[in-house]
């Protein structure tokens, strides 16, 4: 066991440590929401159930006061904003909004676009435009030309939800709409309402973090 063997061991140990650190680094970077694959039936359409909440709560996120989208998988609400949808299919979206009104920065985005039939249903009533100041969030996939403004719960509403997941007994607005996915692709979706409380222009924090108010739509 000479000095050389010691050096070899030292270098090998160093390389191993660096390799492990790089592996941990890359593993950390690949962290993201677990994708949710919408269950398909042979009906040519799929259902997507979403809810938006004012505060996501400590159980679902280290940032308990952040707004977020949640998706319903088998009756359980998950904080995942990466959804896998089949190509060339009608997607029926039901969205329960438990968050209050923030108001759109650009009122133009309060008119729905890219939907089948051109309208969405707000609490059952079909419309295409809402008051921009009453908007709480939007659901938008700009690359597919889809945008839907989501009406917010009024300030005076009773029984507002605190932390997610929110039960339907809390004050909420229900929005339903349908859009069609085209060919395969990987698209981003986002909210356009500056709903990130406390951040400059309301667009920081959850509005700029995948897993809350931003995500991907994987059309396969």
């Amino acid at each position: 066991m000479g000095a050389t063997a010691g050096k070899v061991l030292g270098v090998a140990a160093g390389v191993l440590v660096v390799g492990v650190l790089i592996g941990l680094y890359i593993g950390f970077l690949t962290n993201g929401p677990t994708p949710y694959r919408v269950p398909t039936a042979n009906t040519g359409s799929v259902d997507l159930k979403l809810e938006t909440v004012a505060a996501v709560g400590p159980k679902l996120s280290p940032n308990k006061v952040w707004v977020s989208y949640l998706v319903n998988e088998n009756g359980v609400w998950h904080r995942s904003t990466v959804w896998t949808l089949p190509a060339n299919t009608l997607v029926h979206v039901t969205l329960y909004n438990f968050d209050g009104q923030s108001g759109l920065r650009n009122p133009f985005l309060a008119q729905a676009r890219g939907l089948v039939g051109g309208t969405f249903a707000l609490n059952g009533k079909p419309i295409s435009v809402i008051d921009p100041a009453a908007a709480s969030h939007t659901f938008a996939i700009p690359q597919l030309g889809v945008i839907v403004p989501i009406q917010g719960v009024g300030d005076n509403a009773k029984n507002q939800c605190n932390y997610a997941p929110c039960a339907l007994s809390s004050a909420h607005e229900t929005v339903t709409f349908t859009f069609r996915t085209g060919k395969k692709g990987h698209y981003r979706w986002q909210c356009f309402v500056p709903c990130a409380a406390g951040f400059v222009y309301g667009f920081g924090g959850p509005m700029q973090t995948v897993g809350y108010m931003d995500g991907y739509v994987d059309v396969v």
Partner: protein
Amino acid sequence: MNVRRLIGFNLLTAVVLGVVGFYAGWWLGHQITGKSIAYFSDTNQNDIALFVAYLVGVIGFLVGLGFANYPVQRLLGKPPSLREKEQHGVRRYFGLCTDHKVVGIQYLLGIGAFIFVGGLNAMLIRFELMRPAHLVWNGNNYLTLVGVHGTMMMGMMTSGILGPFANYLVPLMIGSRRMAFPRIEALTFWLLMAAGTILMTTFAFGGFPTGWTGYAPLSEQANLGIDAYIAFFALVGVSMMLLGLNMLATVITMRAPGMTWGRLPIFVWATVSTSVLMLLAAPVLISTLLMLALDRTAQTGFFNDQTGGSSYLYENLFWFFGHPEVYILAIPGMGILLEILPVFSRKPLWGYRLAVTGMLGIAILSFLVWQHHLFMSGINADLRPFYMLSTEIISLPTGFIFICALGTLWKGRIRATVPMLFCLAWLFNFLIGGLTGVFLSDVPSDVTTHGSFFSMAHFHYTIMGGLLFAFFAGIYYWVPKMTGYNFNERLGKVHFWIMFLAFNSTFGPLLVIGFLGMPRRVVTYAGYLQGANDWVSVSAFVLGGSMLIFLANIIWSQVFARVPTGMNPWGSKSIEWQLPSPVPVHNFDRIPTFGSDPYPYGDNAGSNLAQRPIVAPARPTP
């Protein structure tokens, strides 16, 4: 291991005190703000707590290293002393050491480690760009990778040559035993190490989405992670200022007899020019970052147009620093180039005064060009022709460096050693970098190239193709002097050729991709650019692989093979090569007297020292 020796002012204590300080500062920061600032609790981002945590952490780190000892001793009335008592051996490298040569080697290893991380990030970025759509990193992580890559590289390479090489060589080249402020010199290194660590903590706080330029108001929107960026650059700025100050004080006051300004080696002139820039530009950076931090914490409105501020203010302040910054990066590389070319052409430096004029000219003019980064921003249109002119004019002193390099080769006897190869490659790469800069300086042409990959390839050609190649030239040239062991010449040439070819294969096509319309810092791009991006990514992986060859070379030759290098393997007539390898702790037995210009080649008059050899025969390595 002697446990008692572990307790004391060393790196271990520093890390412990740094971490303890961080948590203490975090707690203290929360006490200061409490619930008083509403948006901190709305957003779950307490910036004040994080800044205080970083501050106390850095103070703890520096105290742990022993930087407070001397000031406290003096306050208690002890007499002044020039140096801390230095231990011998490897332990000197892991703490506060006032030997400028040790600081130089510490810089080389420390900067090398952080550049490795920055380079790894670049590989991960290029991996993502192999497909036009999202591949593996989600949007947030990708932007943080881009930001950390740029920020880490800029912060580290700012002192990339002055830190390792100027610290080691400038006292030797001017005939001094030490620098003017040895403790400050050590401080600049450890500040940089603390800064690099702080930048890596950005991942724990959500990263930052702004890239290395940190444009407001996006930087004001960002999460806590950007406070790591702010703290990093502020510490780098302080380190830069102190480094520049130290260099200037040393060169002005500590030159040996006979070392007039007209006899300074060109590398020292490059150091002087760069130090002037560091001293003048870094304060602007620190102030700008302070304003950004105030906007984020005290809710001032400097950069927010809704509160009477302006996003233009940030852009102008940042680039007022940012443009001299890139010349801080470029000039030392020129210094190394012009220092090494005479040795391997065996001719004096051609046009010494022209080269000095060039460097000082670049330094002065660099303060007059910054608005070329804002040509498309909507600045006052009357200003643009002036900045177009000033930016074009700055290519004139840069051209002086070229003509001096070419003249040095004229009728020389060129030896293609590894340092020389890197220098010749510098000339090729910086030519392309400089010419693409002329495109960018022309406003109509800038309409297509601003904010595109053309701009990115331009600065990679100058900073990586120029500075990094000069950095490697310096490593292969001077590390044998620092350690006393040769590099493996064959592995060095393999490293060089793969790096040179892969570098051009990576960034040449990026010029074209930028011309074809791909913006910077994007994670998706038009489908027709996929083939080109794939080519670039594969070339980038090969470029990264060449760095691994370098690492293998340095480990093999410095740890295992250990071929002693002798006093003057390159046959250079510069003074550091008349000393043993490695240079003894006290540098010279007698302070030398200089008698001629620093490049006495072809004179057959011997070295430029007017007296007998200035060191006794080599002593055993301490």
